[in-house]
């Protein structure tokens, strides 16, 4: 299934929620929508899910524009789609198992699979309890279970990390890995870019209804041009002063200086020059660490960019 959105425009009265957004969902890829509140992340997901009708644009699935083809075609597309909404909620008076059985019946999944999925999301012990007694994290796990129940080709997760503890996050990472390995697609939104950084294949940064930047985390880092932090530790502390002196160029700003260690903030393009400078000092390096800027810092920089 090839899924892409192009030129999506959504207007709510005088407010432009989305302004010509393009998005391609590749097989075996976890795509992440990032952006501040009101950037249009949930609206874009709603367009994909058929919950919001755009004013303009196309939603192509295997070459067919579902926005042209009508509701029946979109309904067929939803057969192979799993969704976890932000702040997921269920009928409070039903038990976790009853909720899961309903979705299993609706999605044509065998009833026997319900308990397996409940076990997978760590809710076996709570399956007979009413949802009203579930914590936020438990509801999120139940929602994730509902989303993956029919093993759909496309998983749409709106802020899936909210409320999840470490165990819940591990479960989420496992699901994402399975999807990537199986060549399926995941579209998720998240505020916590540090958390999802290692799992994202492609990040789309939205701001005021427009895509400000798209690419792999590494591509976005390059685009942001943020300095990397380098820590150099020398075997011989007496060589530290000489090294620090040679590094005091514009491109290599020492940010802290210890007895044996110097911390630098330098642009990625100056890394090679830095290595050569260190080498030229003929000092024995006991440790050298390069820390790339976090995706959250990249995101902040790209959002600020005009």
């Amino acid at each position: 299934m090839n899924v892409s959105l192009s030129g999506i425009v959504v207007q709510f009265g005088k407010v432009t929620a989305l302004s010509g957004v393009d998005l391609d969902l590749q097989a075996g890829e976890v795509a992440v929508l990032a952006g501040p509140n009101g950037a249009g992340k949930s609206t874009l997901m709603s367009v994909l899910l058929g919950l919001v009708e755009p004013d303009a644009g196309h939603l192509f699935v295997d070459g067919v524009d579902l926005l042209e083809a009508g509701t029946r075609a979109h309904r067929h597309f939803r057969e192979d789609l799993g969704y976890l909404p932000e702040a997921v909620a269920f009928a409070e008076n039903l038990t976790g198992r009853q909720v899961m059985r309903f979705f299993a019946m609706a999605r044509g999944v065998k009833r026997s699979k319900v308990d397996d999925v409940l076990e997978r999301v760590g809710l076996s012990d709570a399956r007979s309890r009413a949802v009203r007694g579930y914590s936020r994290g438990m509801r999120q796990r139940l929602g994730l279970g509902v989303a993956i129940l029919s093993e759909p080709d496309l998983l749409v997760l709106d802020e899936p990390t909210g409320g999840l503890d470490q165990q819940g996050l591990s479960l989420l990472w496992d699901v994402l890995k399975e999807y990537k390995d199986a060549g399926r697609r995941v579209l998720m939104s998240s505020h916590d870019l540090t958390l999802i950084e290692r799992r994202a294949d492609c990040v789309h940064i939205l701001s005021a209804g427009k895509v400000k930047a798209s690419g792999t985390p590494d591509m976005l880092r390059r685009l942001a041009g943020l300095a990397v932090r380098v820590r150099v530790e020398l075997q011989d502390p007496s060589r530290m002063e000489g090294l620090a002196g040679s590094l005091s160029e514009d491109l290599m700003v020492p940010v802290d200086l210890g007895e044996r260690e110097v911390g630098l903030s330098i642009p990625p393009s100056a890394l090679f020059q830095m290595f050569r400078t260190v080498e030229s000092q003929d000092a024995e390096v006991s440790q050298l660490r390069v820390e790339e800027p976090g995706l959250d810092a990249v995101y902040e920089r790209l959002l600020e960019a005009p």
Partner: protein
Amino acid sequence: MSMRVAGALVVHELTERVRDRWVLVVTGLFVLLASGIGLYGRAAEDSAAAVTAPSLVTLCAFLVPLVALVLGHDAVVGERERHTLGLLLSLPVGRGEVLLAKFVGRAIALSGSIGLGLGSAALLVQGGQRQVLVELLLPTMLLGAVFLSLGMLLSTVARRHATAASMAVALWFILVFFYDLGLLGALVATGGAISNDVVTWLVAANPAGLYRTTLLVQLSGTAALEEAGILLSLPGSLVQAALWFGWIVVPLAIGALLLTRRRAVTA
């Protein structure tokens, strides 16, 4: 229509209603009141058609529309406010079908409550009289279905749950209380100048009025109305069937149309 998803939705609705404390309390109250009427009719040693059935008709004419409106008014707007509508509509099912499935599930639950209430009263009257009360079942269920359908229409029109609730209560007051009073007032004010045909159609235009009038005429004859100077010739059974059908289908169809045409259904 995806029968699989629609079937699942009906079962889901029904399960939810069966576990809904409010539904259980209202059913209990209905059973209690209907049983009380049944016991009173039994003690009066009169025929069920003379005492028990008219009292039950009056009880149902007030209670069933209210319960049905309350049951229907949050079907869509309540799901939206609880943030459950998006997940529901992400299933491979049309919006109109979701509304229909919700209606069917809730109508079954409502009919169950009505059956329990009237059934408990029927159990308390003399054996030979039970048939009279059993015959109330279908019209009462139809009355419930009409107001449930109206409630669901309100649920698709309203943007907020509180608005839908206010509209439901207002509709109940208008159709169950004020409509008949207004009609009587108009008759008195005009000194009976309104023709019987017009009165008949005005009665038939209100489902609560038609329910009450048809059953009371069926049980006690037209003598009481004639004494009040009202000569009603109620529509025939085919027309009545068409009216009941229309009252159920039209609000649901409008609701489905509104829901389908809404651009942002979860907003």
